[in-house]
């Protein structure tokens, strides 16, 4: 438990559950947090070669669904309508 959690009075069972949720995702997918970051960077680079995107607004994460997990990518596309009329 971090000092912050201590101060905010967060219960240890809650920490255990949150930590386990992350650990289990990584155990099940064999994807470490660092590997997920690398995948994210690669995806951004690949998609940027085709379309103009804002990396800061992208969300790439693993979501749990029962005992399976899926990689979810949410990538807002920029509006380019103004260029044509100009």
């Amino acid at each position, binding site marked *: 438990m971090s000092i912050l959690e201590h101060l905010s009075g967060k219960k240890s069972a809650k920490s255990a*559950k949150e930590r386990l949720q992350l650990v*289990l995702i990584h155990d*099940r997918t064999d994807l470490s947090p660092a590997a997920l970051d690398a995948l994210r960077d690669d995806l951004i680079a690949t998609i940027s070669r085709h379309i103009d995107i804002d990396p800061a607004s992208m969300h790439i994460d693993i979501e749990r669904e029962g005992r399976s997990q899926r990689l979810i990518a949410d990538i807002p596309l920029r509006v380019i309508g103004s260029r044509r009329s100009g």
Partner: protein
Amino acid sequence: MTSKVITVTSGKGGVGKTTTVANLAAALAADGKKVVCIDGDIGLRNLDVIMGLENRIVYDVVDIVEGRCRTRQAMIRDKRLPDLFLIPAAQTRDKNAVSPSDMVRLCNELREEADWILIDSPAGIERGFRNSIAPADEILIVTNPEMSAVRDADRVIGLLEAEEKPAPSLIINRMNPDMVKRGDMLSVEDVYDLLRINVIGIVPEDENVIIASNRGTPLALDGKGRAGQAFRNIAHRLNGEEVPFMDLEARSIWERLTKLTRGR
């Protein structure tokens, strides 16, 4: 009845597999079923002492597999339940003395005469675990409501899925309702939400478990005691009965009365 092979495993050690096998076996045999337990923990046998049969061992599972005795000769009959038997593990051999196909063959032979065959798997995911799950019709995973036990349970569930074994059920052992209430122990719901497999039993932390193991008499046999009741409930669920989960917070009337008279 067609016989069923049930394997009790866990990943992490010391979570209550042997306790579970001894108690489920006693509860099923007390119902008049013929039950054979196999200690799958070669080199670290323990089921014999928990069942109180350690002084009667002549042959063990390796003797059967290597043809030094007939299966019957290695089956030790329980002191009180005439339909309960134990096939002990070898203590001085290593796990490789038995193979998964040896276990399948042995269980197929036992299916001829027994209603239930319960296998006490060793901890870990090595040979002893492989041997134990090979003949299983049903797999029970024992865990405790804490970090490493839940994590290891998930590993084992994943391995079973990958090998297309029967979908396992979960026993959450050593629940402490007071700690859950304080927010310092994962609840049954938390553990279910993390592992997402069918929960077949919830067993409270209960000092009677240790007392019973000191005596070598399974606590599922005597009427009182909350862990014993929890194990009897699991045995009934294995038989296909619908048994509601007991309220871990509700104390027996007797406990409440002694609390009241002592309380002030």
